[in-house]
């Protein structure tokens, strides 16, 4: 009996949801996840599929707002890029923006595996308005495959805050479930 209760608790997706996180399913119902409760979310259609954006707090300078972006890449859309190529593009180095990335690692999500890595870059933000300050940015990136389709999950923040968001990213990924 005790063993059954433990197994049921572990199987429930929201078993470890705490007050600061809440479950979320977008209108397209392509996935479900848990995101910080005070982050605002909306979904939009994209040329490659669809995207859900979770907007979190901004950095102390007010120049960049942290957030999680989940992009669904539909293999049936024109201009489809396979997951492997997408990862190479995302891990590209760029001297202009001092962009660099870490090696790819595997991360268990539900019954599958995600490929995760981190990206650093430096950009002037805001790009079109004065004063525009060079800010170091950090991105946690995960690519979750679902057949030929795949999801790109990215948590972006100012580099000075990214350590604080590591736990948020891990929890978000662990709660991520692709549907359909």
């Amino acid at each position, binding site marked *: 009996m005790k063993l059954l209760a433990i197994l049921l608790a572990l199987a429930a997706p929201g078993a470890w949801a705490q007050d600061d996180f809440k479950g979320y399913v977008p209108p397209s119902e392509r996935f479900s996840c848990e995101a910080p409760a005070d982050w605002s979310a909306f979904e939009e259609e994209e040329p*490659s599929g669809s995207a859900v*954006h979770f907007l979190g707090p901004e950095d102390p300078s007010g120049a960049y*707002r942290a957030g999680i972006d989940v992009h669904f890449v539909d293999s049936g859309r024109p201009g489809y890029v396979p997951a492997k190529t997408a990862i190479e593009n*995302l891990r590209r180095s760029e001297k202009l923006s001092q962009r660099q990335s870490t090696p790819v690692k595997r991360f268990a999500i539900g019954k599958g595996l995600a490929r995760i890595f981190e990206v650093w870059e430096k950009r002037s933000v805001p790009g079109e308005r004065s004063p525009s300050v060079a800010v170091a940015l950090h991105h946690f990136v995960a690519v979750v495959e679902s057949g030929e389709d795949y999801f790109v999950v990215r948590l972006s923040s100012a580099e000075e805050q990214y350590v604080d968001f590591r736990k948020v990213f891990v929890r978000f990924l662990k709660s991520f479930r692709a549907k359909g």
Partner: protein
Amino acid sequence: MLRSRTLLLACLLAWPALSRADEPGARPYDINSHPLSNREFGLLFKSSYTVKEDGTVWAPAAGGPVLSAEMPYLVEKLVRGQRLKALLTLNLILSRSQGEKHLTDSEREAIRATVRENWYYLNYDTRKDFKSYFNRDELDAMNAEAPLPRAPLTPMTGAILDDHDSEPEAEEEDRPRAAPPEGPTSLAGEPLDPSPRKETPSPDAPEMPVLDLTRPSAAAPPVPAAPPLMTPLALVRQPAPPPAPAAQLAPVPPAQAPAKPSPAPSAAKPAAAAPVPAAPAPAAPLAGGGVGSIAGLPAGMSREEYERLFPTQPPAPAPAPAKPAPAPAPELKAHAKEELAPTALVASVTPEQFQKFLLDAPYSRQVRAVLKLVSDHAPSFARDRSLSLVMTALPNIVIDPARTGRGLRHGIEEAPGRPVSIVLSPGPVLYEKKGLFFSGAEVVLSQSPDAYRDLGLPMPGLEAMNRETSPAKTSASDWGETLRFDDGSSRGSFTPEQQAGTLLAALLSLDLARRGQAAEPFTAELYCRTAQMMLYSRMDRERGSDEFLDRETRASYRQWVQGPSEFRDHLLHTMSAGMDGTVDPSRAGPAASAAAVKTALSFCQGGAAQASSKRDDSRRLQAQALKSAGLIEGRALDEAVAYIERNPSAPGEGGPEACRRLERELSDLQRTPRVAEELRAAELRWRAGGTP
């Protein structure tokens, strides 16, 4: 016998004098029949010459009036004296200063005032030495008022050249030309070529056209052709009024031409006023030779001597043929002052139509070049929108760093009752605070005072902010041709190709706003920026390089090409941050926006107050960013914060007006999906086919 011989000899000796007494040159100069220009009048008065009622000119403490033959020399002497005085004044200011690179504000202003006042008298080299004290607009205005004359191109061949045989002069000015004022007519009643700019005549100055005696070898200034009226293409254009035909010179009467000294090679006499009137009365020859042919030679002067003193000018240009009115585009509707209905179809604009429009468009040459780049490279879905906006609404498009507001690359000025202005920036100011061990973050700044006035702050005291400061060195960098200054600041420059993308985005932004399709700021900005990136993509393919973009734009462009989802995310994360403040994260997305507007509708004033506080937050963050960059001290930051609290952003209209605005916004939000769909379709075509 001896007495008669003596008498005869005396008569022979006196005969030249007597004969000269009857010559026109020996008569007193009559200002009523041969008026001087206002400048020449001014010089005479400054030198205490007096003009009597009978038109004669008297030197101070002179026993007689100035003769006709002497007047050209007198004016020449006064002009040279004024030039010398100006140069001495400038030399005095510079010698008393700490050096040209360390001028105080008052010294700089004194130099500017002296140069501006005497621009007419300065030659080409001197103008070149001091032109760095003025900006482009000022230089254009000064050169328009006192253009340098052209050097004569061909020697006199002896053939009588007719006006109609000459080729029209190439158009030099790239500024829009104003219609020439209705000029005076000559005594013979023929219209005269008006000068490009006329000084305000003094009350005593005659209204007759002027005889410019200070141009011994100057060509007549090019006569601007009156441009056709600027009207929307759907309306019939009025044909351009034909320019006045060139004045005909009367043949030079014998024994009147003075022996005019040839001008110094370095002294380029500035051209002044209109050519000589074609009067039946004998006229003194134009110092500059004037237009048309000159028949006959002054008495007592050989042809070689005359050619040396009066080199032939190239004949005045034949009147430029009036440009035919362009065929009105049947697709375009004249919506110059009307609100465009949101569902109005976007008119298609062919390259030929736009090229024809550009010929007469009231834009500078630089702006026309940028518009041509837009026409040649914009993606089709954006091209028609942007160009039809230009052709129907005729927005003012200028390049002026002082008017872009917070915009680093462009600004938009809108005022009720006036056409909208799109102001492009020629380049940003860059600053990186140098520390002992570490450098601060680089900050990119606007050169517009409005960006700082809104924060209650003066413009940063950087040398790069002052366009009159001479740079320490110039070098190429990621921000284009960059001027570097001693205080560590620098000023970059945007290429015309980059400005074309910026202009395209600005035009689309205006068009979306006019059509009520900009209610959702993220979608609208994404639309404009995607079109901009597609334009850059075409240029990149043509040139094989994206080096024409500045650092940040290039980073954005490469991100758009290789990681389009990253491009969107980066845009959203920066637009929703407090410093930018364009996107409210609580109402990001069309659904959330609509819900927020509906809520605000029930509390009309409350919705506006919330928007105002977010704008004030943005202002505070901007001031903080300037402090972090080391551009202001802590005390200045405190004063800026206090200023923002005392002067909050306009909360918006209250009461019924606020409700109407929110209702409009709600209906505009319903058009957002259409814009997003149009963008998706265009980007899909690009991603699939590889070309926008």
